[in-house]
């Protein structure tokens, strides 16, 4: 136990203090009100922050719920190693769910395209896992500033029996009074980081010294350029087109997903401070590196209606 730190009376809170306290409140509220909550863990930076907050919320106990990783089997190798290490350090049960039917049918981003792959291996897999384990609440690390349709997402976001979201029929959410009532089979997606921005996330990682997957930091990596996106050749499953030669470039990732669907950015930012510096000056929003958002202006809204996080 550390020596007690005094706090000046009536001390003003910085915005990060406020966001941290709000997120901890939300996480505790779920633990108190739900029978079987779970925390989605995607290995990315937002997940890492969310897990860190969960550990704070219940200290000195470990968080009273398991972690769930929906594995599309196409994540970067570095992500798997990091995942197992983090779950052990948190003292939490880690549930890894893979859509076995999808695997049996050989579904993958190259054979079936990004839309089918994401749907079968991610959206359907997530629904399978939630139903199979009977989770009535699932934490996700989504933020309202990420994408337009997310700006209207509730902190406690109701999902029907089919895990669907109805944006026009959401429960009003007032003060910090969250309504977690569900009937059997229905569930709530919970977003403790709703009010955080990307810069807040980075700043918090910096302030709290939260461990991150090395992929966020620039390094020489083998990449090919396709449709304006830099794809990392993470394993032999990436089919090279005629004439395509992987090139070593100093790149990093602003967001992590399936490696064939996640574009790298050329960068020399190899430390956290350099990454943050790059983030502050960046003029492109972070989901831009993800192929799945590009179809149409409201594509994310359609996916969310169907159960995507």
């Amino acid at each position, binding site marked *: 136990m550390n020596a007690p730190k005094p706090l000046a009376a009536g001390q003003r*809170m910085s915005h990060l203090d406020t966001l941290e306290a709000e997120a901890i409140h939300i996480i*505790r509220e779920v633990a108190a009100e739900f029978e079987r909550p779970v925390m989605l863990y995607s290995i990315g930076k937002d997940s890492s922050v969310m897990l860190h907050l969960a550990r704070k919320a219940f200290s000195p106990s470990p968080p009273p719920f398991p972690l769930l990783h929906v594995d599309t089997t196409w994540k970067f190798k570095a992500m798997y190693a990091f995942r197992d290490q983090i779950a052990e350090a948190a003292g939490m049960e880690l549930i890894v769910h893979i859509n076995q039917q999808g695997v049996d049918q050989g579904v993958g981003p190259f054979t079936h395209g990004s839309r089918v792959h994401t749907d079968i291996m991610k959206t359907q897999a997530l629904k399978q896992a939630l139903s199979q384990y009977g989770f009535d609440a699932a934490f996700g690390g989504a933020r309202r500033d990420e994408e337009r349709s997310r700006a209207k997402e509730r902190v406690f976001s109701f999902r029907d029996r089919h895990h669907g979201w109805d944006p026009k029929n959401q429960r*009003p*959410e007032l003060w*910090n009074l969250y*309504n977690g009532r569900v009937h059997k089979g229905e569930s709530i997606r919970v977003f403790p980081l709703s009010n955080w*921005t990307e810069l807040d996330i980075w700043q918090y990682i*910096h302030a709290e010294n939260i461990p991150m997957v090395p992929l966020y930091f620039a390094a020489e990596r083998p990449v090919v350029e396709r449709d304006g996106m830099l794809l990392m050749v993470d394993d032999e499953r990436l089919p090279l087109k005629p004439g395509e030669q992987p090139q070593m470039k100093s790149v990093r990732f602003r967001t992590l997903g399936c490696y064939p669907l996640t574009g790298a950015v050329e960068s020399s930012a190899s430390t956290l401070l350099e990454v*943050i510096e790059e983030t502050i000056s960046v003029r492109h929003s972070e989901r831009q590196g993800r192929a799945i958002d590009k179809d149409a202006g409201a594509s994310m809204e359609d996916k969310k209606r169907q159960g995507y996080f």
Partner: protein
Amino acid sequence: MSIEQILEQHGQKDLLRFITCGSVDDGKSTLIGRLLFDSKQVYEDQLSAVERDSRKWGTQGDAADLALLVDGLQSEREQGITIDVSYRFFATARRKFIIADTPGHEQYTRNMATGASTAQAAVILIDARHGLQLQTRRHSFIVSLLGIRQVVVAINKMDLVNYEQARFEAICEDYRRFASKLDIETIHFLPVVALHGDNITRASEHMDWFQGEPLLTLLESLPVSAQRSDAPFRLPVQYVNRHSADFRGFAGTISSGQIRQGDRLMVMPSGRQSEVARILGASGDVTEAHAGQSITLTLADEIDISRGDVLARPDDKPRVADALDARVVWMVDQPMLPGRQYDIKLGTCTLAATPQLIHHRIDVNTLEHQHAEQLDLNEIALVRWQLGRPAAFDAYSELAGTGSFVVIDRVSNLTVGAGMIVRPVTDSLADKSQNVVWHEHKIAKSQRARQKSQRPAVLWFTGLSGAGKSSVANALEQALFQRGHHSYLLDGDNVRHGLNRDLGFTDEDRVENIRRIGEVARLMADAGLVVLSAFISPFRADRAMVRELMEPGEFVEIYVHASLETCENRDPKGLYAKARAGTIRHFTGIDSPYEAPEKPEVVLDTEKLSIEESVDELLDYLRKRQILV
């Protein structure tokens, strides 16, 4: 500036949450789009998406329609309106902001209330061409209802009124007059052109006559609601952390005040006491903590505490009661019906609650109090709730964190309403049996009445000040006494100075005043008396509430009528003069409404009848009704 310095600066920023409100065409989305765009919060790819969308849905020709940055959902873009609350984020060098963007249509009162519930300030848009609209009044009322004390009135589209200062000033004046009826502490006025950015992030080239700061600078300087340092400590217990045999922590977010190690605490509603042993903040042990922080406390003694309890200091505790009056915003199509059981979530405490009666509905456009039997979607009312068990809470106006609740439908699980507590109805003492049962008297009401040769009744005189209520009631009582009847006159002199000494003249206090008088009148009627009551009692709903308390036929509503002009000329206590001069506020007939009875039992026109004639008429009526035998 190095990255460390930038982070240092960013780390120092505080957070201001504000709500924007305006009607459909006031340019609200454009204003927000402009704030985001000018403070460089728009990424290039978002802008190109907007440019693409502008061609499809935009309203600005070939120029990018900044409103599309803000209007999120497909269905909204198709309709060209914002239908839900959406949250936007931006930061300046000094401050981080969260905007709750809410729709302007009347049917979206609930969304505005939602957005306002977490806001510390409100930006209200007015179209300079149209001035104050019904919506402006409604938005301002909701803002005031939800307890927002800082309002910025942005008068938009100044370019369409030739940047005229006179037009701006006239709208400001209108607004000030209207807002004097509301509970808003500070109002700032700004002339803006959201479309072009005038007075948004930079001063306008077209309005030299305006000396104030542009909107963004103003938003950077508004105080972030600093709670009084002497605010009472409240910790609604959220979660009990049972780590080990020697660690039982009570986790929650401090909703007000501060706490130190060693402080004595009382658990409400049980009333048990202990001392703070440890305080765990977000980053380990601390010696003290304050409002807004999420903490875990351990106590020196092992006492029974569970989720839903409130920790407070023994000398400054919340109220504990099993009934309360609260203003309620109804949020679903299915109406709120008195008598139906709901659940409410009050802080961290969820319990059964039944609306017992609707004191009055408040018209969000005119602020009038109306009688209501049920509450429909987007309606607001003062409602009495009976709770399933005693709970600890405060008045919303004093401590919003322990004074607010949401109403949950037990069948559909939907959030159907939001409540702001005005007062407890009965204080039940902590640590004591809560069951006060109506004692069954051995002597029946009818026996008491027979003994007195009369039937009990409540003669309720209502009318404007100066209409003659007290004069007639006094004269009638003398006449009753001379005839050997047993009566008692309740009036301002014997009630306001004693029983209702703690009440003022706000609308809530007036309601409570009448409620108490009604209860006293009921006890006296139960004792067999003919009760005379002479109060202005301006609201129909309140008189209806008293009528409900009595047995059928016992309540006699007597409308003592004289025109406002006559009353003002009579002005027996000089009150009209004071009200006109502005030294008294909320004076019935002047700046507070009088709702005339719809079906009074008796009407006395004191412009035509003398006091004696009025008394004769009443005695006739009472004999005819066999109240006097």
